[in-house]
């Protein structure tokens, strides 16, 4: 399998923006077409609300799916300070480095678990991405994403997809994710 330099779940950044709730764990699918060294992850952030300065931490976990169980294989995080429009544009790329383990991601469908924590300030934290227009029923095929129904201060080591909420805009939103070697 050849090594690829980068992988993204959308060909270019989509226009949709969705608020991310702190301490809610979201799981989103990510297809990898060929092997890639997992070194950097990027998302596009949008900050709204008041001008107060706020510290945010995003944790992304890389999960594999076996049967109906998601299991974590790696993680990557970033902490940043946002807010105060006097000094920053509302939109900002967050670039994550320092994975918890060296990994050459193999081709296939993986999932990212996403958790946001915040402290100070009251800014509204959103990510750019794509969204399916809120179907009222559950997709009957393979797991295509969802979110945990209880708040969590950490990414779980494993979670059963049957324990996830798989309907609604919150569950179906897929943030734009760009990983690179």
């Amino acid at each position, binding site marked *: 399998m*050849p090594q690829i330099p980068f992988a993204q779940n959308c060909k*270019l950044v989509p226009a949709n923006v969705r608020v991310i709730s702190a301490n809610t764990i979201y799981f989103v699918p990510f297809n990898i077409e060929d092997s890639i060294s997992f070194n950097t992850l990027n998302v596009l952030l949008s900050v709204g609300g008041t001008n107060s300065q706020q510290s945010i931490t995003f944790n992304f976990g890389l999960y594999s799916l076996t049967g109906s169980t998601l299991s974590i294989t790696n993680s990557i995080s970033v902490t940043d300070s946002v807010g105060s429009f006097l000094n920053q544009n509302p939109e900002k790329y967050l670039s994550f480095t320092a994975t918890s383990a060296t990994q050459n991601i193999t081709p296939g469908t993986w999932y990212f678990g996403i958790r946001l924590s915040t402290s100070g300030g009251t800014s509204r934290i959103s990510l750019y991405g794509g969204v399916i227009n809120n179907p009222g029923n559950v997709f009957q095929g393979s797991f295509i994403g969802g979110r945990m129904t209880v708040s969590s201060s950490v990414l779980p080591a494993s979670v059963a997809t049957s324990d996830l909420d798989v309907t609604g805009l919150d569950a179906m939103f897929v943030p734009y994710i760009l990983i*690179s070697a």
Partner: protein
Amino acid sequence: MASARLNIFENFPADNVNWAPRIASNTLQLHGIYIPGSISFNNVAVIQSISATTTKSDSFYFGLYSLNGATLSLANSASGSLSINNASAISFITLVTSATQDITPGYWWFADRGVGGGAGTRSYLVNSIAGIVADGVIGGPFIRGRYTVSTTGFPASIATSDLNAEGDTSFSYFTQYPYILISA
């Protein structure tokens, strides 16, 4: 994965889209894209919207680059123009390729550059995100961004160190790229 033979390729789906003016004169921007199969580089097109009450003409310039290490190399190029006299028209601009090429599967970089002149109110079909200015450079190897050097053509080679990644505020920066359609 086994590579198929493609008849058409577009850098993003032409459904959820936006419109934006051509980039500034003598500016060159590039975006990396994955082409999943082989495709003959025969027909290339962009989509333009123009509003003009007299005949107006505009040209579009496209470059195809490959990346080897820290150097982007020009593999091919295409250009075309369209004259139009219509109060409001959306049109394909068909570009003529400079050389015959069978594009192989893999990662390529699409380049477009601005030129001076032209007239009329015109814009091009671009990806859906609004023209935002994003702080915070895309981390990792070069994926999308702009050439730091003012240029009137496509350089034969570009060092990635001479590129500003998307999100670099030293360029007042937008995240929009033109829709490119390639067909065999």
